[in-house]
């Protein structure tokens, strides 16, 4: 069955796409996540589920049901709560290191364009999502140039856009890249992405730009670079809905490679 085109994959300047994009970037606060993990007793991974359910129940709703617990249960879960709290504090620093949205998008994404043939660093393929800040997005090591796609002519950023950067201009470049990919023109797409990175290095569409770059790399046949960039994106944004898109792209790319 053919998948229908998603709203975010259509015209990015459309109001509907804007609205959908705003929700895709929506996410809970790390503090809320820590609180819930602590309430469930899985902050440190030591409590038993039956116990955690009751303990968490009392936390949620100190509003509703705490009074129904017997004194002995209260004493028991208080002790357990203190124990888990201490351990949660112990891991708190690790949890706080969950990266923000910008890390991959701002890790010089244009690097994948200027040196298209790359191999993933060992760190990029390691499943260590809590420490991704220390991982390079794509390793600087390169494969033989003969195996890489032809170089791309990079357009200079337009002066007016550089002087007055705006979301509309950034969206226009993302749209241009998307349209080019739909026409299987990965060179134009890559050039548009390069321009976006140059003009809006900290723009709000960094994550989308990275995902489109993965698609461009897949289209160009540079699966090593696509995988390296895609893996680092997934490691940096494990909860993002865009990860599913990246995995699908890499999966499709693998299939394409096998067919070839």
């Amino acid at each position, binding site marked *: *069955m053919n*998948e*229908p085109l*998603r*709203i*975010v994959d259509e015209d990015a300047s*459309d*109001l*509907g796409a*804007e*609205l*959908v*994009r*705003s*929700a*895709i*970037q*929506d*996410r*809970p*606060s790390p503090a*809320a*996540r820590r*609180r*819930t*993990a602590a*309430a*469930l*007793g*899985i902050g440190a*991974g*030591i*409590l*038993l*589920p*039956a116990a*955690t*359910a009751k303990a*968490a*129940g009392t*936390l*949620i709703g100190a509003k509703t049901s705490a009074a129904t617990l017997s004194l002995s249960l209260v004493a028991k879960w208080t002790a357990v709560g203190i124990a888990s709290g201490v351990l949660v504090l112990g891991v708190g620093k690790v949890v706080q290191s969950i990266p923000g949205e910008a890390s991959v998008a701002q890790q010089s994404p244009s690097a994948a364009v200027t040196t298209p043939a790359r191999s993933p660093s060992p760190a990029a393929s390691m499943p260590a999502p809590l420490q991704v800040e220390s991982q390079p997005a794509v390793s600087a090591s390169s494969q033989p140039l003969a195996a890489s796609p032809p170089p791309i002519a990079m357009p200079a950023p337009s002066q007016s856009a550089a002087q007055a950067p*705006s*979301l*509309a201009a950034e969206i226009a470049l993302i749209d241009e890249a998307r349209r080019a990919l739909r026409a299987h023109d990965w060179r134009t797409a890559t050039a548009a992405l390069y321009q976006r990175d140059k003009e809006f290095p900290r723009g*709000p569409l960094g994550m989308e730009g990275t995902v489109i770059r993965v698609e461009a790399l897949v289209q160009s046949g540079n699966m090593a670079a696509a995988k390296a960039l895609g893996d680092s994106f997934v490691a940096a944004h494990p*909860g*993002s*809905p*865009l*990860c*599913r*898109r990246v995995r*699908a792209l890499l999966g499709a790319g693998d299939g394409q490679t096998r067919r070839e």
Partner: protein
Amino acid sequence: MEDAALTMTASMASSAGEGAEASRLREMFDANYELVWRVLRRMGVPEADVDDATQKCFVVASRRVADIRPGEERGFLFQTAVRTALTERRTRRRSRETGDEAMVSLLDPSMAPDEQLDHARKRALLDHILDTMPDDLRAAFVLFELEGFTTSEVASLQGLPQGTAASRIRRAREHFDAQVRRIQARRGKGAAT
């Protein structure tokens, strides 16, 4: 003596089982926390309550973890999230007045589009549109358009035949597009006056 040994063995087996369940709960949490949070939010749980509602979903999962079949963890959590959201909405008797005026009030024609469409405003506008959608279409829309699942994954998560899921995705999209067109028409009219 024999009884004591049996009791100890049973206790150890029980602890091992509980340890496995705790580990599974942790995996479910790590893999799905953000998804559950966003589903609750987009299914209409107010921002102020969504953290508590997320916690409730995982408390339910922690109590039922032994009953959840392997591979169906995400579907269980999704369906729990949808039920929790519907209950929250019913409890709160949230206003369903999501007419054009409410939506248009979020759009100020005197502002430039870039300023107008800041994230908070866009999310509020999206939530208004979603509030106008029937819940079955809304859930399909959230999974497909916002969470990026494929049609077959949407069908699996919702426990639906694939054709039904595809139909809901299509109808949800038509509904969404129609609402966006109406807002744009109203905005154009507002800007002209």
